[in-house]
């Protein structure tokens, strides 16, 4: 009997420790909002170069940022319970993102691929190819926003 209680206590303690190591909902929302906002910065930067005078270094820097974020495993920031709550602002994620499994996976995969492709062509400095890859990448951002992000009302 005593050992059982001890075991239960131990189990709770381990669980609690585990939960502690896990990302808090508020932080998860903050981090993902920050990551997306950083990508927004980088997209704007690339666009300015594609539309105006092209600076290869600028574009490489920005494309690398997006690539790094895309490959960072952002899924980890969609912890259970983070379908609601406040990070820097009220989260705009739709609950479907947590339940649509394969469909979200496909969209996220397309996004990763497009981000890798953009970083690759950015390194070549070919402005026309960058423009195409940039447009494709923008399409994958939109695909996810269309389905999994709420509009402001």
């Amino acid at each position: 009997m005593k050992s059982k209680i001890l075991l239960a206590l131990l189990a709770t303690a381990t669980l609690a420790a585990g939960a502690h190591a896990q990302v808090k909902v508020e932080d998860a929302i903050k981090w993902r909002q920050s990551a997306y906002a950083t990508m927004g910065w980088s997209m704007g930067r690339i666009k300015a170069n594609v539309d105006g005078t092209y600076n290869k270094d600028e574009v490489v820097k920005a494309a690398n940022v997006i690539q790094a974020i895309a490959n960072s495993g952002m899924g980890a920031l969609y912890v259970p319970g983070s379908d609601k709550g406040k990070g820097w602002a009220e989260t705009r994620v739709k609950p479907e993102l947590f339940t649509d499994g394969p469909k979200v996976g496909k969209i996220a995969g397309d996004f990763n691929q497009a981000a890798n492709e953009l970083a690759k062509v950015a390194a070549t400095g070919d402005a026309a190819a960058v423009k195409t890859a940039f447009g494709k990448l923008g399409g994958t951002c939109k695909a996810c926003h269309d389905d999994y992000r709420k509009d402001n009302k």
Partner: protein
Amino acid sequence: MNSKKIRVWDLPTRLFHWLLALAVIGLVATGKIGGNLIDWHGRIGLLVVGLVVFRLVWGLVGSTYARFATFFPTPGRIVSYLRGEWRGIGHNPLGALSVFALLGVLTVQLLTGLIANDDIAFVGPLYDLVGRDLSNLATGWHKLSVNVLIALVVLHLAAIMFYAHVKKDNLVKPMVRGWKDVPAGEPARGGGLPAVIFALLIALAAVFLASGAWLPEPPPPPAAVETPSW
């Protein structure tokens, strides 16, 4: 049956109509697809600002049947139409409701679009006037109200089919050729060259305003300001 050919839709009204139809198809397509096409969305959107403003002015200075006063759907006119007593030419009172509804929703679409953002790499040309929160709000409305617009277009097309097949009244041909066979009625008058120029000038002014070209230069681009080199 005696009928005569009269001029119903003047050339500017017809050009407006078909350009608008093409442009709206282009806007819905480029809006939904996104990517680099969002730049074209912005350009076509500005064209539509010009078209809609032109039509609004044309509704005051255009030829007879293009004038809002001619077809304004007053309750009296609607009732008489529903009783089958309306004998006019041009937009009947229900059609007129559809015209005003379409122009109204288009206006909402334009005003919200001009300050919208896609959170990716595009902002409407008047975005700087309003700030992020209002822009996000407008973007939400833009995406909602386009559904109303699409519904109205579907209704518009359905009504045209209904008139063609059930009432045996082809509404498309007059909108292409300008004239129509009618039992009786006066041809459209007015809307001459000065009126066209007047309406075009106001439309151009509206496009200029909408394009944001008059806004103060945004803060100098990053390259021109001193920022740390890391």
